[in-house]
């Protein structure tokens, strides 16, 4: 946020709670993913029975319903499939971030994710551009994987 902007919190007299960013609340079966991001590793759940890579992970493989699985480390490389630039009408916690980029990213390993594109001029955004993961330590406990232009 630039210095000349007034924060939504000050503008509307909001509480800290009103502007607190929502954080992911892991399930038992997604916990390893978030433990991975804390160590700046992008992990994917791979079915030990059929080899299907699921993201988001579910308790059972979405293909063969097997429970046995392993966590593999993804390359952190991907391609921009589609994007949007949120410029108005977002929940208060994201108000001061506008404009910010939401994107659908195709990971080289196959799965698709929703995330933010960061460290990128908005004019440079282009479908098909190569991206690499960056890890945003949003709290001491939670790290969100985000994406920036590769290279």
């Amino acid at each position, binding site marked *: 946020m630039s210095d000349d902007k007034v924060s939504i919190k000050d503008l509307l007299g909001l509480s800290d709670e*009103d502007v607190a*960013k*929502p*954080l*992911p*609340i*892991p*399930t038992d079966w*997604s916990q390893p993913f978030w433990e991975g991001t804390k160590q700046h590793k992008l992990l994917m759940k791979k079915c030990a029975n059929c080899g299907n890579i699921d*993201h*988001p992970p579910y308790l059972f493989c979405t293909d063969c319903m097997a429970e046995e699985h392993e966590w593999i480390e993804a390359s952190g490389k991907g391609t921009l*499939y*589609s*994007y*949007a*630039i*949120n*410029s*108005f*009408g*977002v*929940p*208060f*916690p*994201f108000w001061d*971030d506008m*404009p*910010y980029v*939401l*994107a*659908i990213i195709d990971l080289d390993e196959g*799965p*698709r*994710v*929703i*995330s*933010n594109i960061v460290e990128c001029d908005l004019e440079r955004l282009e*479908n098909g551009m190569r991206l690499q993961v960056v890890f945003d330590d*949003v709290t001491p406990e939670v790290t*969100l994987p*985000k994406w920036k232009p590769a290279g």
Partner: protein
Amino acid sequence: MGRGEFAIIGTGEVPCGNYPERSEFEMAYRVAKMAIEDSGIDKNEIGAVLAAGHIMSNPGCDYNTEMYFGRLPEAIGAKGCKIAASTISGGASSFSIMKTAEGILHSGETDTVLVVHAQRFSQFTTNEQAKFFAIAGSDLEWEVPYGMTYNALAAMVTQAYMNETGTTLEQVASVCVSDRKWACLQPNAMFNNKEITVEKVISSRTIAYPLTSLMCNVLADGGSAFIVTTAEKARKVCDKPVYFLGEASEFSHRLITRAKERDFGKWGAGFTPVFEKAYEAAGLGPDDMDIYQIYGSYPCIALMVMDAMGICEPGTAGELFERGDTWPGAKYPTSTNGEALSFGHTGTGCGFALLVETVRQLQGKAGKAQVPGARFAVKDCGGGAFMDIHATVLGNEIPG
């Protein structure tokens, strides 16, 4: 469902817009009375009362609980009522509640079902609505922490669709123009007093690039109801029943990242078999339709659905809207109530609004929006993060 086995014989609707003082129950109560009077039946003939739940819960006055615990059949004094229940699947509710009604009618327990919908968004603050619609179609763990919103979801779909099909932003905006033209003929539409132009749509404030404010639907308060019966009873009590001739469905995903068809430019082609199945069940084809009722909620989704309805090549629906082929008086009357973008978005109710409008059209009761001599119409609806699609073919006659 057998072809023409069930029919709607009467409808009711209250104006859509900003009505904070009008409770959901009051709306449900009023539209129920209108539908009963419009159908000409005695209220004691109603054997089941089905309600589509409010999509955003309101703990202070829980309309959803009121409805599934039977406040409406008690209030209207439906002495023959046997079943009170709720069915909800977001924007797809009008379809899934019809499936529930069909099941009840099939069971033989009753031959008359009252179906109602009511929604009141204005009881919530703008931020509560923004928060709800950030999370409604999104995942709390995987999307919401990134500042995901419904508008951004639709914007990403639009951006990819335009990129892959060559559809222009002007063509996307043409959907909004067409919807507004129809809304201006509708007394119950939220935005019915002024037409808009492509230039105005594109130059309105950017909300989620590439979407501008006039490309984003507005949440509204509204409600509607209809009476559905067996065809046998419909013919006895109604001059012009509207028959369900063909239906088909497909579910794709909860999360947009897990859509079965990964190329959004091909979604229209992906929906095509659903419409083909519904047409086939009806014994009709796309050119037999007099009206094309599209529930898109965002202009790009309307293009994808039009791509699938069989009157243009998938990926080219933008040209059809741009030419004005969908306007009042044109070849393909489309979304004749103005749809979510101009009629107003009533959560679970957009599909209901389109359904009761379709019935009015096919009964010749659509007033200034009436498509002359309309006999057959095709309609879609869907819910969630564009999770599914349901196609319905309706007609005021059963084709021979």
